[in-house]
């Protein structure tokens, strides 16, 4: 795990670099690549990324990453790697860009610059909204996400996920009858049925009580023990001994002192 700042910062360009297409080709041994080149204008966003074949290795590597929210650069010069069995906790005050970074890593928004390399189809994302359908039961919600991810295990996986997050008693209850904490637990149980290697979690412990936080921590620990990895943005201490911490404050993107016309044209 190496987290550090690297290189002199380049000035902002008029044109926001754009990721080339958020989808990656399926089931191919390719590395997902985000590469924003500054030397030439980014291409048609519908296009797929470079299909560079690299050795298949389970790790998330972020190189010289910069990301922006609403056209305004938030973070710059991020470098870190997450290996199997590791957890990385992102810290920083509100508005420091935790959510933006996680959304960028999940491929939901383009990076301003830099490279993210991660095995394809190996990341799952969970944010403030749990993606639950209120008229479906707990089991149906989980079964849907299991089917979408075509995860091995099927119904058994769903049952196991419910047991892990202490939801078995609620299996047939409709999601709109759940409390906020129970919904949250259901949202986190979804992670288990995706069968994905890397969990990207944005404030996973919101509205969880102390016991549920401990339960969730043990689930994460179990995931790490089986070779999984997790990237969390959280304010509370989960008690994960194996977790590294990355404070985002030093990576705050600075704005050019006197933007020329071109630069001010975000």
């Amino acid at each position: 795990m190496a987290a550090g700042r690297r290189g002199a910062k380049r000035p902002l360009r008029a044109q926001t670099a754009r990721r080339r297409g958020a989808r990656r080709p399926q089931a191919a041994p390719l590395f997902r690549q985000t590469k924003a080149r500054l030397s030439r204008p980014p291409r048609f966003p519908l296009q797929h990324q470079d299909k560079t074949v690299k050795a298949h290795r389970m790790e998330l590597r972020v190189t010289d990453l910069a990301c922006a929210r609403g056209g305004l650069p938030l973070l710059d010069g991020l470098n870190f790697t997450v290996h199997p069995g590791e957890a990385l906790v992102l810290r920083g005050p509100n508005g420091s860009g935790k959510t933006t970074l996680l959304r960028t890593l999940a491929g939901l928004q383009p990076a301003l610059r830099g490279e993210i390399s991660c095995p394809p189809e190996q990341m799952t994302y969970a944010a403030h909204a749990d993606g639950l359908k209120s008229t479906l039961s707990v089991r149906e919600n989980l079964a849907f996400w299991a089917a979408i991810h075509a995860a091995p295990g099927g119904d058994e996986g769903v049952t196991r996920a419910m047991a892990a997050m202490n939801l078995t008693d609620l299996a047939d209850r409709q999601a709109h009858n759940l409390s906020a904490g129970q919904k949250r637990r259901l949202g986190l149980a979804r992670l288990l049925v995706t069968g994905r290697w890397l969990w990207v979690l944005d404030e996973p412990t919101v509205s969880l009580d102390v016991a549920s936080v401990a339960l969730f921590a043990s689930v994460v620990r179990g995931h790490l023990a089986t070779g999984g990895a997790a990237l969390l943005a959280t304010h509370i201490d989960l008690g994960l001994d194996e977790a590294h911490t990355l404070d985002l404050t030093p990576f705050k993107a600075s704005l050019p002192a006197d933007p020329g016309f071109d630069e001010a044209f975000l």
Partner: protein
Amino acid sequence: MIALLLRDLKLALRAGGGFGLGLGFFLILAVLVPLGVGPDQTTLGLIAPGILWVGALLACLLSLDRLFALDFEDGSLDLLATSPIPLEGVVTAKALAHWLTTGLPLALAAPVLGILLNLPGPAYGPLMLSLLVGTPALSMIGAFGAALTVGLKRGGLLLSLLVLPLYVPTLVFGAQTVTRAAQGLDITTPLLLLGGITAGSVALLPFAAAFALRINLR
């Protein structure tokens, strides 16, 4: 994708899913038009093909603004975008679910409403046929419009403004099929053109819609 289709169908059929609303709207329209136009059977028979097609089109429009908006609000769309299904597939599955819960029932119910509007006898078959062929295009074009407006707070009205002009060719060829059948003319040309629009929409619009969704998610 099949899982997504089944989930959407299940959601539509459960309480609050809005299944049947479009059908009810279609029925009310077919009742209101004679009340407005007058009970003259000849006039009603003349305008029946157009009224039925316009009614089907508006009924399709009703449920469109919820197509992606609900998934966008509860975060499902974010999760679907990171799932193994390409967004193009998500769009297609959701448009298909929309058609199965809106367009298909409309096509099946249309002949009954045709009786209310004194639709001439030879036009019933072509009415159902044209609706079956044409409504998938309505769902797909609507899905594209819904994808464009998914991030907007008051997208519903804007959605109709964007989608209705796009419905023009479908409406013209669909209604022409029925009108010609009512007049005892050959319906092959408009029906084929209608099928062409549907095929083109289903083939190309998922890409445009998925592109719009990606932009709205970022």
